[in-house]
């Protein structure tokens, strides 16, 4: 007869990875008491260890496909794919933070714990089989990030960032709950599969259903920073500590797309004909505003904020295309986006040193002379973000536009490629300033082993995926095939 412990271990098996991440976070909080201020970096390495352990746990559960805990938690290839992306985002986030926090003098243990909690929230979002789990995951993620955004508590911009994010985030959560309650009122269930079952037999012309869908689009649109729900992004990205911005631009956005995919290409699939119209519209608006506003920015963090809006727009093109191909293209895209964007933020962090912000685009002047490696990395990331082969960004965009053409949305693909041509201007401006302007004053960059590791990982990934995307592509396609 199995002991109680074995019984317990078996019952929590599907959430092994989540348990590991949460446990790591709690241990970080405890260890924090025993560590002197100057040795907090060990907490960072410990958190990284936790993330790697969670990744191993997820790897061992790969191939499983089922609903657990009364259908509220799904362990399927789809969520597994996203969990790996979250591990990458969180792992890179930790690596980018270790030295940066020291410079900003905010090296405290809670930082890593919050990062891990946010990651747990994102994992729950990807695995949610129920609107309630989904909401819980989302709030766990959002609350952690509100605090992280305001982590430089003596800095006005950081405070402003946190407050703005909190207020608007709370507002969007309200809208989401309203939409969810409408769905519940119609279908009598919060279970995603249950709602799908209801919709298959329901009258789809019901205006209430339509209203619920719109509310979900709006609230998720807020999370992924789609225009016109993007107003918070530039200020929040600019004010938050750069390492948090890097994480924020990747993790929560990817999580938002995980939920969008789950809800719109699975649960609300019967409504695809309606939702695709709205999402196409959002996609065009998002690409237009993101790319055009980025043209005139002088602060690199604000520029990357608008660029991240624009990239949400490209991913929305894939969502509008829908179907397994559309969904797989979004998955591939957000994964590549997370890597290249965090890499770009890594270089921005290098420019930050005590007494100098290093956030103005002009601060990049002459970097190609003073620090060839940093400039070269930035060059790779900028070309990748523009979508120039042989960098990974091209493969991502190619798949998105390919699935759009396949779904008959040729006009959307044309809009997408034209706006990415616009984006070339502001990404290339960085390269131009680095290589074609003379350096201003001396240039001592902040480097540390952790930062170097993060940059090495992201640049390698960007080039390898760009040249040989087959493995990642097959992984994404197989993952989506599991749920559709």
């Amino acid at each position, binding site marked *: 007869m199995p002991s109680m412990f074995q019984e317990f271990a078996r019952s929590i098996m599907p959430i092994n990875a989540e348990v590991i991440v949460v446990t790591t976070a709690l241990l970080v909080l405890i260890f924090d008491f025993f560590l002197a201020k100057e040795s907090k970096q060990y907490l960072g390495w410990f958190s990284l260890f936790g993330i790697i352990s969670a990744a191993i746990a997820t790897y061992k559960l790969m191939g499983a496909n089922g609903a657990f805990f009364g259908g509220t938690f799904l362990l399927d290839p789809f969520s597994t794919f996203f969990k790996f992306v979250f591990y990458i985002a969180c792992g890179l986030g930790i690596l980018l933070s270790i030295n940066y926090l020291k410079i900003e003098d905010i090296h405290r243990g809670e930082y890593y714990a919050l990062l891990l909690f946010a990651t747990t929230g994102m994992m729950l979002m990807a695995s949610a089989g129920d609107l309630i789990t989904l909401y819980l995951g989302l709030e766990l993620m959002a609350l952690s990030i509100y605090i992280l955004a305001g982590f430089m508590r003596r800095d006005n911009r950081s405070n402003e960032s946190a407050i703005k994010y909190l207020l608007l985030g709370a507002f969007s959560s309200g809208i989401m709950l309203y939409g969810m309650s409408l769905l519940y009122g119609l279908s009598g269930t919060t279970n995603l599969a249950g709602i799908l079952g209801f919709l298959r037999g329901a009258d789809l012309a019901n205006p209430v259903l339509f209203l619920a869908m719109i509310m979900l689009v709006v609230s998720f649109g807020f999370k992924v920073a789609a225009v016109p729900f993007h107003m918070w992004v530039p200020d929040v990205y600019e004010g938050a500590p750069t390492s948090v911005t890097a994480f924020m631009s990747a993790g929560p956005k990817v999580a938002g797309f995980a939920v969008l995919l789950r809800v719109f290409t699975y649960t609300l699939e019967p409504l695809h004909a309606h939702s695709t119209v709205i999402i196409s519209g959002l996609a065009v608006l998002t690409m237009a505003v993101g790319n055009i506003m980025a043209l005139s920015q002088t602060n690199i963090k604000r520029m990357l904020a608008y660029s991240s809006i624009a990239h949400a727009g490209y991913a929305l093109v894939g969502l509008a295309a829908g179907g397994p191909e559309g969904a797989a293209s979004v998955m591939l895209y957000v994964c590549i986006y997370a890597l290249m964007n965090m890499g770009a933020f890594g270089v921005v962090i290098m420019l930050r040193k005590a007494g100098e912000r290093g956030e103005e685009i002009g601060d990049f002047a002459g970097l*190609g*002379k003073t620090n060839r490696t940093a400039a070269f990395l930035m060059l790779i990331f900028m*070309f990748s973000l523009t979508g*120039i*082969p*042989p960098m990974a960004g*091209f493969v991502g965009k*190619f798949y998105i*536009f*390919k699935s759009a*053409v*396949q779904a008959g949305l*040729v006009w959307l*693909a*044309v809009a997408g*490629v*034209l706006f*990415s*041509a616009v984006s*070339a*201007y502001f990404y*290339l*401006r960085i*390269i*131009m300033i680095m*290589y*074609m302007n003379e350096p201003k004053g001396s240039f001592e960059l902040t480097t540390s082993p952790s930062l170097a590791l993060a940059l090495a990982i992201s640049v390698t990934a960007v080039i390898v995926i760009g040249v*040989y*995307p*087959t493995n990642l*592509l*097959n992984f994404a*396609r197989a993952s989506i095939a599991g749920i559709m």
Partner: protein
Amino acid sequence: MLELKLHQLDFPLLSLMIFLPVLGAFLLLFIRNAATARWIALAFSIIEIVLCIPMLLNFDSSIPHMQFGESAPWIAAWNINYRLGVDGISILFVALTTLLTTISIMVSWTAIQDRVREFMVAMLFLEAAIIGVFVSLDLFLFYIFWEAMLIPMYLLIGVWGGPNRLYAAIKFFLYTLVGSVLMLVAIIAVYFAAGRTFDVLELMNYKFSYTFQMVAFAAFFAAFAVKVPMFPVHTWLPDAHVEAPTAGSIILAGILIKMGAYGFLRFSLPFFPDAALSWTPAIMILSVIAIIYGAYMAFAQTDFKKLIAYSSVSHMGFVTLGIFALNLQGLEGGILQMLNHGVSTGALFLAVGVIYERTHTRLIADYGGIAARVPVYATFLLIITLSSIGLPGTNGFIGEFTILLGAFMHAKSYAVIASLGIILGAGYMLWLYQRVAFGKITNPHNEHLADMNLREVAAALPLVALVFIVGLYPNAAFGMMHTSVSNLIQHVNAKAQSAPVITQMIRTVTGN
């Protein structure tokens, strides 16, 4: 139809030609010393030329097939393969690329003093990407090289260019990018329309619907026309040429802009023959405008390089005129003229580079009477000028004559107007030569001008040799391409037989 002849040699020649420069570039990353970097880059570029020899010798010009083929699955989920091969058309451009790259590296020997290593890395990457463009037989692979080439070229102009380089670099990049991305959407559409394949040879045999052809042709045209560059999207070219370093100008004029015309030959014509026929009148008119307008603008230039840039617009007008005459003479003339233009304009930019390195001015007015001081240079410039004009005995004559022949057979009016372009060309080039070389020395700085040194002569010599080889024995080039071109024409005509009524009408009206 066309087939891919796999594994003709014991080793993957074309892959080697693409990846050897990449290897060289990586090697350079570990070199700190500028002199060593120069020698390594030169060595790799010369090996590329050496690799051309087995390619040219083993090429069977009696069959139209793609040769030295390589094929390997790459992204299986999208049915993308790594497929390479050359036919009688692309083989010539591959050879030209290797030659001009080496020459460019030689002329940059002393001209580039700043960040030599990075410069050479960019040159080698550029060579790899350009060769990739000419030998790709998979549309996806082709697009990768087509776009990747922008990166080193952008850096060459932007980092090592003249005072207004930032503007020129970004203009070059954006113009070409906008055209290319439209082609990308069309490539994807072609992929789905033809049953999910990027295989160029399969696509050549696929018959697309007329409406589809018209739209897709326009999208491909956007990419290729910007690259050629055709009027009215040519405005990036003068800026890019003027600001680019000599090596950049040589590559840009010699090879890069040929890629647009090559795109017409390799993709637009065989994929969309009906659309090509329907669009022909418009393209012929644009070509004629480019010929006259380019020549007219060249007259007005005071800057040496800008004059040559506008002459390029004019000469490329001849090329597109020949291609879209859609007969054997026109096409062969067009292709030959592309090679000729690569040789002569490459040499002209080399000439400008040589003199600019000594005087640091490109204004024509700053020269005059230098023939007495630098006789070797003046002779070189004269030969190239005459070749550019198309004097019989030089390569330019053969190319222009054949194009005009083709255009005349297509529709007389175009040929008549285009021949005016030749007269204008003689006018501005001779006037340029007169102002630079003859007369009295007006600028005291030119009193002690040093003549071309051994390295410069060595760089110029192959080009001068080509001027006469092609001029006196054009079959060297024609023989290589003839089978492939006839096959292309047959293919286009056979595929376009069932052209809709509207096309027939247009053809009747334009007298074809």
